[in-house]
């Protein structure tokens, strides 16, 4: 069976990863000299508490090629085909590490690495769908094709309560258009060609949620949905309830945005990912 590997920015929680046999390689969060493995040695709650209240500005680093090589070697004991799907190479060097890890691996095994050009559940939903295919016995070539098409069907919509963190972290991408307003406006953005790209601006949280809901409702068919947040579980619950009108509520993946993205998304952010149904 092909083994699926991704990074912690896919926002796939460990229980789900275990269930589907997915290996999640963590990125590192640094508060000054204190280093934490994303979701392994720092919880999401702890992270956001420090982000908002702490004086040290956190930074993040990609996993080392060695970390990937170790994963490849370990998985090579069970399989001879590995598929790695990483977050956008324009946001992090993780893709490079995953590729570099291939030459460091000592055991013989075929490893394919795909740059998803997206992040968060935009990546996560694709990884989950791919892992299911792998469990059903799909071969590596089949899976890489599937991933490329599925990424085209994956649409991430992010509501930022503030762009302060994104700008500060230097990851603002084309969303810089949304900065510098004299009114308090809330930006909505997506990830396009691997970068955060503006969609529009709204004046309030509620208007932002309406915009997200209407965007999701406008898709002719929806295969899967994910709702994730940085610091507001209650609002994420409400959004999930609301989206229950489009797909069964229980099927909606709930997650928190990885601290590594949280560094940029900031508190109060909420994201919905749509995995569009396959076009017939």
């Amino acid at each position, binding site marked *: 069976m092909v083994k699926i590997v991704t990074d912690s920015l896919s926002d796939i929680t460990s229980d789900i990863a275990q269930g589907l046999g997915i290996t999640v390689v963590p990125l590192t969060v640094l508060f000054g000299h204190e280093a934490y493995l994303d979701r392994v040695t720092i919880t999401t709650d702890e992270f956001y508490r420090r982000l908002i209240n702490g004086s040290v500005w956190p930074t993040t680093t990609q996993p080392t090629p060695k970390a990937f090589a170790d994963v490849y070697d370990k998985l090579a004991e069970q399989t001879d085909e590995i598929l790695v799907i990483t977050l956008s190479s324009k946001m992090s060097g993780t893709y490079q590490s995953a590729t570099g890890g291939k030459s460091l691996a000592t055991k013989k095994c075929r490893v394919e690495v795909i740059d998803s050009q997206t992040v968060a559940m935009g990546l996560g939903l694709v990884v989950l769908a791919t892992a299911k295919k792998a469990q059903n016995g799909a071969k590596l070539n089949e899976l890489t094709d599937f991933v490329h098409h599925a990424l085209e069907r994956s649409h991430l919509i992010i509501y930022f309560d503030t762009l302060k963190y994104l700008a500060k972290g230097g990851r603002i991408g*084309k969303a*810089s*258009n949304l900065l*510098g*307003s*004299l*009114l*308090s*406006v809330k930006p909505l953005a*997506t990830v396009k060609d691997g970068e955060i*790209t*503006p*969609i*529009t*601006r*709204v*004046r*309030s949280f*509620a*208007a932002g949620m309406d915009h997200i809901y209407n965007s999701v409702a406008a898709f002719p068919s929806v295969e899967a949905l994910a709702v994730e947040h940085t610091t507001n579980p209650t609002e994420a619950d409400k959004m999930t309830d609301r989206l229950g009108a489009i797909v069964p509520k229980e099927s909606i993946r709930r997650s928190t945005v990885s601290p590594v993205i949280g560094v940029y998304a900031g508190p109060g952010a909420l994201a919905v990912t749509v995995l569009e149904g396959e076009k017939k």
Partner: protein
Amino acid sequence: MARGEDMKAAETISGQQLRDMLATATNWLEKSSTEIDALNVFPVPDGDTGTNMLLTMRSSIEEAYRAPDSSASAVAQAVAKGALMGARGNSGVILSQICHGLAFGLRKKESFSAIDLADALKQASVSAYKGISNPVEGTILTVMKDAAAAAEEKVNDGVTSLVEVMEAAVNAAAESVANTPNLLPVLRKSGVVDAGGQGLYTILDGVLRYLRGEAEQMQFRKPQLVASSLPQQGRVQTPTRVDETPYGYCTEFMLQGEKLDSDVMRSRLQKKGQSLIVVGDDTTVRVHIHTNNPGSIVSYAAKLGTMHQISIRNMDEQYQDFLEMQKERGVDVETGTVAVVAGDGLSDVFTSLGVAAIVPGGQTMNPSTKEILQAVKSVPAEKIFILPNNKNVVLTAQQVHSLTDKHVEVIPTETIPQGIAALLAFDYEADFETNAKLMTEAKDRVKTIEITRAVRSAQLNNLKIRKKQVIGLLNGELLAAGAEPREVLDKILGKLDLKDAEIVTVYYGTDTAADEAERVSTGIRDQYPNLQVEVVRGGQPHYNYIVSVE
């Protein structure tokens, strides 16, 4: 801060302070040098003015540390020498001339006072004009001249405070920068202010801030770019080329020798190209020229002395790079928005939300079709949305359709809040037609309250109104009258169903004090705790308050 207090007591500046002052100003310039690059359209839109000025300043600061002693005169001499050695580009060379003039003004001074400063600025202005064969107004030259004149006037009024004199110079420089498009057509056409003038303003502003003792706070701030006075432009525009003649080569070098004569060189090189600058003394001369034949310039100069820091750059290539840079900066070349707005605060709000050009006007001064057309033409985009923001302007705006080849769509916004709502609804992913629909829908979702005074007595909607009485309109409909703006606003809010409302934005006008506006908004917050209330200075005439309810 201790430094500021010391300075007030002494009111003179030592050589060491002069160096710190210019170093602070250089750091200040650095923070906006790339934005200044983007303004650059004259004499050639190659987008390097800010960088060139910065490199010139840096070179002068480095040299300042090598001054033989710490007198103001020695440091200023070193600054001038460093600037000359490191001058890059047109504006850099002129800047070096300015430094040269400053040093001349400060000669033999151990330290200098406000009066000395004014004199040095004047010398700087004279020197700036000197190096150039055909000075053009509406550039860094004009800005230097205006700043120096303002400083001189202050001193003549008997002012001896360095801060006050410098304040006058900086304010004059800001006005002068804003006015550059009126003097130089290519700036007007491109909708920008002069980049070199902007750079000089930023340096002077940095000096002023140092004098005020703000050096530390400056690390966390950024210089403001001066906005053009006419027409107001929101975004940095892609410059239009004046004609299709090639720009040729920007040729620069430093010549070292003996008994060099700048005047003779200048007259010899005069006919060989444009933007000629020859500056320096009898041992070091810096030459800058735009020419189609750099070879002839170089061979002439080589006979006079040794050449250093020779740079010959193809400006047509630079221009292409500049266009690329503009593209990368995310200047949207496809769709632009023009808005009719009265009031500087409101103009800033529209600009900050991405409006490309603003036509001043509103209730009592309706702009002409021609003015709107000009703004439409000034925006480097083929598809234009117009936000008239006033009932009486909608028709005028619609005339623009037939007068331009551009694809123009008027979103019939009748109030400022409608205009802002429409602007915000712009969807970066959607096409023009979809956006027109989204923006039109958005304008109808916002409620507008306007508080103003009656121009005449009347009886309307069962209300008896005296002339000059405070009246309130809801979506253009007269709804209430009273003695005080606050009272009338409350009456209208009381008539609204605020259950579904989320945000109230209060834009207060020129006739209204900021603390009064704060009191009004606190009142609204207290009465409707579920609402988010925002107060913004609109600076609009006639209307005490324009309020949007969303």
